[in-house]
């Protein structure tokens, strides 16, 4: 071991044994709050000395118990999450926050409370449109969350502490973007697979430790000699929760470097910063409702400029991806979704159309969130790469 990949090795260790740190902290007296999706305001939890812990399914674990609470033709990720809960994988949690990011999460939140009670549970309602009224409504929901978190933590959340937590998380966002900048060169300094591993590690450990890990990875990958090789295809992957490295490895293994992504265990959670506002809740409200670019929010009517102009709408919805394509020198895009995902599934046509308008070849691939999905995914990814090179 030369030590040159210490940060990446650490990220891999955390990825492989995600709950270890959370369990240590729990043993030391910390309360662990599980959350899913990137719509849970981690800043509020951290400011109250609660430890947020990202909840995921596990595509390597056959889903055998979820039928107790969820239908079969339903988001395989939420089915897997409930399955893990029923099998005791998340027994160490003291609390849970589930946001209304999509209907699958909303339904799972209610089923969870029936089948796997936890001492603290908060369902965070989030409107799906961006208007003055919805911002006001959402701020009310955040005030509710603040109250239940405060009573669970047994202390008050001061504006000062919240502002501080926002700054620390903004620092994480900036560091992740710095990490992504290292994928601009050809070959990139860090692969899509490694990057996913780092991001999932961040969602498993305290924010300050995550920032330290990021600094370490950023400084070492620039120096290492065993980084990714140059490949003909430089891909953008558009997805939702893409939480297993095998999915990324399958695409990169077919002969590509994934140089940028718009995914939830990826760039989407770190693309924008939270504004520091006088009442920090205003910054949080604005960030979670308007700044995260997710299919779950209807963002055509951009706050303050409701136009009925399709081209402008597309630009306001997906314009950031044009920057990705140009700045990361992308020559192909993979739209990679899990089966039965309504919000993202409905957006495939529009995203494809937008990529077509950029003259960017793209393909839509679906997987079943199981190891058995990998071989068909490999064939499709490889065939897509063959269409790029022929």
């Amino acid at each position, binding site marked *: 071991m030369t030590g040159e990949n210490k940060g990446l090795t650490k990220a891999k260790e955390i990825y492989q044994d995600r709950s270890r740190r959370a369990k240590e902290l729990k043993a030391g007296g910390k309360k662990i709050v599980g959350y899913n999706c990137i719509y849970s305001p981690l800043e509020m939890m951290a400011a109250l000395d609660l430890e947020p812990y990202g909840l995921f399914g596990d595509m390597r674990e056959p889903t055998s118990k979820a039928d107790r609470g969820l239908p079969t033709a339903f988001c395989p990720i939420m089915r897997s999450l409930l399955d893990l809960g029923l099998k005791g994988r998340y027994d160490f949690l003291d609390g849970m926050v589930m946001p209304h990011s999509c209907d699958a999460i909303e339904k799972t939140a209610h089923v969870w409370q029936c089948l796997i009670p936890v001492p603290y549970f908060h369902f965070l309602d989030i409107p799906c449109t961006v208007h003055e009224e919805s911002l006001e409504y959402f701020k009310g929901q955040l005030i509710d969350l603040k109250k239940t978190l405060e009573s669970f933590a047994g202390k008050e959340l001061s504006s000062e502490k919240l502002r501080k937590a926002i700054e620390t998380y903004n620092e994480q966002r900036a560091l992740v973007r710095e990490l992504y900048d290292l994928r601009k060169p050809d070959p990139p300094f860090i692969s899509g697979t490694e990057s996913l591993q780092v991001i999932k590690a961040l969602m498993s450990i305290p924010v300050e430790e995550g920032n330290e890990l990021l600094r370490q990875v950023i400084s070492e990958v620039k120096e290492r000699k065993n980084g990714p090789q140059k490949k003909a295809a430089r891909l953008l992957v558009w997805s939702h929760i893409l939480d297993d490295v095998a999915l990324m490895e399958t695409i990169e293994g077919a002969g590509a470097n994934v140089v940028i992504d718009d995914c939830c265990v990826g760039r989407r959670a770190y693309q924008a910063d939270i504004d520091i506002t006088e009442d920090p809740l205003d910054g949080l409200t604005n960030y979670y409702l308007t700044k995260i670019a997710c299919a779950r929010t209807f963002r055509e009517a951009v706050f303050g400029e409701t136009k009925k102009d399709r081209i402008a709408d597309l630009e306001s919805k997906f314009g950031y991806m044009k920057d990705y394509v140009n700045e990361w020198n992308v020559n192909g895009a993979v739209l990679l979704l899990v089966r039965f995902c309504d919000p993202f599934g409905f957006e495939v046509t529009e995203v494809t159309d937008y990529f077509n308008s950029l003259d960017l070849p793209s393909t839509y691939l679906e997987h079943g969130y199981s190891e058995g999905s990998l071989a068909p995914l490999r064939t499709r990814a490889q*065939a897509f790469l063959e269409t790029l090179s022929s």
Partner: protein
Amino acid sequence: MNPMNSMNPYFAGVDIGSTMTKVVVIDTEGKIRSRVIGPTGAEHRQLANEVMQQALEQANLSFDEMSYVVATGYGRLNVPFADRQITELSCHARGVASFFPSVRTAIDIGGQDSKGLEIKEGKLIDFVMNDKCAAGTGRFLEVLAAALNLKVEDLGGISLKSTRKVNISSTCTVFAQQEVVSLLSEGVPLEDIIAGLHNAMASRIVRMIKRLKVEPDVVLTGGVAKNIGVVRAMKENLGCAVLVPEDPLLSGAIGAAILGKELTLKALAKGEPIPRRERHLEKVTFFSS
């Protein structure tokens, strides 16, 4: 100097499908020198080298005379005697375009998957693929032929006698089987049932293919294309003519051989070495990690 002089004049395509293994050897003119089709089945799956050997014997050639070997099909990944693996999607597209240069849509119905290819000027530009469900694949017909106590190759001929095809409401292979049994007990003529099955299969595949821009010429390949009843049902469901190559099973292997030839010529034209691997004609290492 003719670049062809500096290489061996033969190219092989090895298509390891889920049901059949196909090997084709072509020469520099693109002429097929030999073709062999053997079962992939559980005990045969390691023996693609034997099918390759048969193909070589048929043409009286040695393996060393192969300038380039391309493996394709679901078993393509672990063929130790191939120089390169290319997906069956690209190989089918290339193979079909070699028989029908004006093809825009190719539909391949294999033993355990089916795929639709959108082709422009001989090149694959988009695709859809079903490999999750037996319905819409050759397996559907195998299961139902067994339920009817018939040989799968006889289904097509029998279905042509149908005057009133039944409507099979279930597109699931297992439930369709039950439906067939109950239709039989009601005394529905066999040919009408089989015609109904062909129609159910064709409509399912056409629904999938419609995710692509389906434009003529439409070509049907794969083992199922040998079933005249399915070809007819596909024509009806697509509402246009359907072309079938002389040997519909071989389009993947032929495409693989042609792509191998093209890769070789491209390298030679650039003055680069042929991108060959160190390889020997040995057993396929299926499913090794």
